[in-house]
């Protein structure tokens, strides 16, 4: 851990102007916003993050959950995960989101972690977190230790020869299935980004994880009104029964009419380098009769491009079973 300046601000434009002084908003940023701190402070202690300026955004008025006129929901960036998961509207209209958040971390962590922070949660790849190891995400060009190392928990979808790190968030998986929109305030004004465009595949630049630029501040997330007659479900599979990152998870939002799927939104967690929306699975489900054969075909499609590593081949079948079971639960 190195010394840093801690700045508490009550004004978003000050925070944004300070953030814009950093060369990057990605790995290696010299300015970081902190809200719950559950990822950032942890990584600072490990010397993985070494910001010179840490700007506390907890006093910005971004901690509200507000229903929108169109029936959707606006979620402030600093809303705590526990408040979001237990919110009556979320539980009624977006149960998949509540279930996903409650499947993650511990009660203590959820009390601190925020919506914006969770969108930016960093990978748990052990080599990323160990400064003695080579890691292209932490130090571009040094190589990937995980590909020939301990990779049991790492990604099988969206990987590259440079990085196979998993996006560890549960919330993001539900947000992907709900097609959330992320609202960002930057030095050139506000913009909104569909969650599918927000996270980047590692490719040859795994240090770049999102489209954020220096100074960009996530202000809130909006959800569209729940699809009529849709049901949703989040299933998380892991070694122990709680307090562990997913080996595979699935967020499903489906509408069934007359025994057939009329609309499906599918995202997988624990297997992708980003929250893994599967439009292939959605297409295969739509119009098809509810039941295991349909679900299995969808699961096969979702994992068709999987590229397992030496230790995580089991994730292909595990993710398929996870998706099939989640679909069964959502269509009971």
């Amino acid at each position, binding site marked *: *851990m*190195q*010394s840093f300046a801690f700045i508490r601000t009550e004004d978003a434009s000050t925070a944004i102007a300070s953030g814009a002084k950093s060369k990057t908003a990605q790995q290696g940023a010299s300015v970081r916003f902190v809200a719950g701190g559950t990822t950032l402070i942890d990584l600072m202690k490990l*010397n993985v993050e070494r910001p010179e300026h840490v700007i506390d955004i907890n006093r910005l008025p971004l901690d509200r959950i507000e229903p929108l006129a169109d029936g959707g929901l606006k979620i402030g960036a600093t809303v705590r995960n526990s408040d979001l998961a237990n919110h009556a509207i979320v539980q009624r209209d977006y149960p998949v989101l509540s279930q996903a958040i409650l499947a993650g971390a511990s009660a203590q962590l959820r009390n601190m972690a925020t919506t914006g922070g969770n969108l930016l949660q960093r990978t*748990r790849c*052990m*080599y990323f*977190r*160990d400064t*003695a*190891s080579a890691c292209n995400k932490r130090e571009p060009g040094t190589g990937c*230790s995980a590909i*020939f*190392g*301990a990779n049991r*928990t790492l990604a099988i979808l969206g990987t590259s020869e440079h990085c196979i790190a998993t996006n560890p968030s549960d919330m993001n998986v539900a947000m992907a299935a709900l097609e959330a929109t992320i609202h960002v305030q930057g030095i050139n004004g506000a913009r909104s980004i569909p969650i599918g465009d927000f996270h980047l595949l590692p490719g040859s630049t795994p240090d770049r994880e999102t489209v954020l630029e220096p100074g960009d501040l996530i202000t809130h997330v909006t959800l569209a009104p729940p699809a009529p007659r849709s049901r949703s479900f989040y*299933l998380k*599979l892991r*070694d*122990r*029964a*709680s*307090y*562990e*990152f997913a*080996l595979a998870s699935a967020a499903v939002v489906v509408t069934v009419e007359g025994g057939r799927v009329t609309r499906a939104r599918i995202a997988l967690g624990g297997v992708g380098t980003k929250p893994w929306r599967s439009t292939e699975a959605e297409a295969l489900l739509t119009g098809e009769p509810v039941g295991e054969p349909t679900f299995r075909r969808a699961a096969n499609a979702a994992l068709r491009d999987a590229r397992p590593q030496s230790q995580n*081949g*089991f994730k292909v*079948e*595990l993710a398929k*079973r*996870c998706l*099939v*079971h989640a679909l069964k639960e959502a269509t009971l």
Partner: protein
Amino acid sequence: MMSVIGRAQPRVDGPLKVSGKALYASDHRFPGMVYAVPVCSTIANGEIQGIDTSAASLMPGVHAIFHRENIGTLFRATVNHEFGADMVHLDETRAPLEDDVIRYYGQYVALAVADTFERAMAAADAVKVTYRSLQPNVDGQLAPETNRKTESERGDPAKAFGEAEVRVDQTYDLPPETHNPIELHASVALWDGTTFTLYETSQGVVNHRNVLAQMLGVSKENVRVITKFMGSGFGGKLWPWTQSALAAAAARQLDKPVKLVVSRRMMFQNVGHRPRVQQRIRLSATRDGRLTSLRQDWVNHTSILDDYKENCGEATPQMYSVPNLRITSALARRNVGSPSPMRGPGAVPGLWATESAMDELALKLGIDPVELRLINEPELDEGLKIPFSSRHLKECLTTGASRFGWAERDPRVGSMKRDGLTLGWGMAGCSWQAARFPCAAAVELRDDGTARVSCATQDIGTGTYTIVAQLAGETLGLPIDKVEAVLGDTQLPAGPLSGGSAATAAVVPAVLEAAGKAIDALLALATTAPGSKFAGRKAADLEYTSGRVHPKGEPATSGIAFETFLRLGNLGAVSGLGSSEGCGAFGTTKPKFSSHSFGAHFVEVTWQPEIARLRVSRVVTVIDAGRILNPLAGRNQIEGAVVMGIGMSLFEETSYDQRTGAPINSNLADYIVAANADVPALEVHFVEYPDTKLNALGARGIGEIGLAGVAAAIANAVYHATGVRVRELPITIEDLLT
């Protein structure tokens, strides 16, 4: 007679712990104290070429960067394995910073000391070390490199195996496991120019003192070691580790108090672990289930410099009746830190293998696994050829079977269902040696009407304060709130290690004797104290009952409170010193009886193949550990051990990166232990047969027995549910995802 013993007594130290008043090693702070953070090697095999401290030395608040050339002299200790006041034992024998050779990943190469913890961390990070690096060997396949050693032998097992009708020949693997007590290892060292005072988290303050005196080159009298409270040790804190010597050496060099807290990552590198063990088990039996041979050939990894043997044959020679037996051991050297005992060392890995093999044999024979064990119950310890002091394994098996409902078991794989889940039922027997260490203890009766009992043993979180206070209170006839128990300080009479489930058995006779002697001293005082009602009478005519002295034959209520005599004699206290000799595995004399605790675990798992989800849903454990002194603390020990067994079976494994030799999952997110949600309903039952051949109260230790056998019972249940026989722990999703 015994009113306090056997009562469910809440912890006497509970209020201190829940109110935060109990000070653990790293809670101690002193004026002028500085903080030390080790620099760990980032290679596992090679040599230090250079250490550049120039940048680190200039950082704010930095007092010193120590390394081989400026730490001062640190000696190796001359070990003395004999248990007792003069014991000198440690698992990593090399003195820290002794040479420039790196033999395992994370080995301490330097020590940064600064005025705050954060500044010391930053300085440690800024020390630049260059290495000549060699390929480390952390290979998980353990071909024995050193000679195989025969541990126990009888009959001709090879011949019996060759002639047998039914045989099992399988190899069982256990990965390295890391002790993860919540309380990290920590040392706070004070030096006054002559004497060291070391606040440690030690399961053996006397041994720790003896080792550190030698390493620091001072006499034993000039080292005091204090461990008042411990956030668990699980064996990892039995022996001193190198951070203790480093903290003391830094305190001496700087003439300041030094605090050194080992990080969670260092817990995986520098302070011991249960080694990887591979065991080949060969069993043979007659068609009607009588064992004809048993062979156990194990190899465990050890460090480059030290020979740590994981004694997997601890329970094997006496567990079952078998005429032909051979147990052999071997070591394989790896670039890892020294292994160290972990709860139930030897027996826990050993029984994982032998009790799994017994289940495989039962299947081949078509005999119920409980029945197979009953058939092979021995009459005596066939290894030592002496009788058991007390053995009730059969009753553990039958009581467990009945409490679990074992009679309802359908042996066909995957045949049992409940609520849409497949059930698996498995069981295993268990055993752990019963022994006691040598021990001394003192009891005082004080002029304020209270008593003090003291012993340089430790309460490692298991309830020793409470047991000692109960014992003294019982013997002195005083309520427990009138008894002060003082432990964890080398200035007290030399007490035992808190390990081997042998502390309680050692403390019992010593405290009983000390209390008796204190009463004798009191009665003598009553006959001599000026103004005493009993002045001039013979002490032999007086009696002490529940805090009062009275003539023999008269009611206790007629007596006089003991503090009266102390006041008359102008004495603050009368005292007695008691001691007991070691016996069994931890003693010096050849035992007449074979003493062990026994037990049986019955496990139910639920299996959901559609999502490859396995959970332990029910455990019934029956333990024969002699008299249970405190059922609350006793049950707590067994339940905790079963939870640890769930972790051992399903989650725990220290993973070494084959290229760097680093234990790469060195944190509690990646090294998975059981969480609360993994813990099902646990039923613990004690069959209480006091083992009075071991000590007067008939109590055996219960710290380890609860973990032995759990992994086999779970693996056996997993087979029953899934048809998959897992012989390499932990049992993971990928093993079952067929």
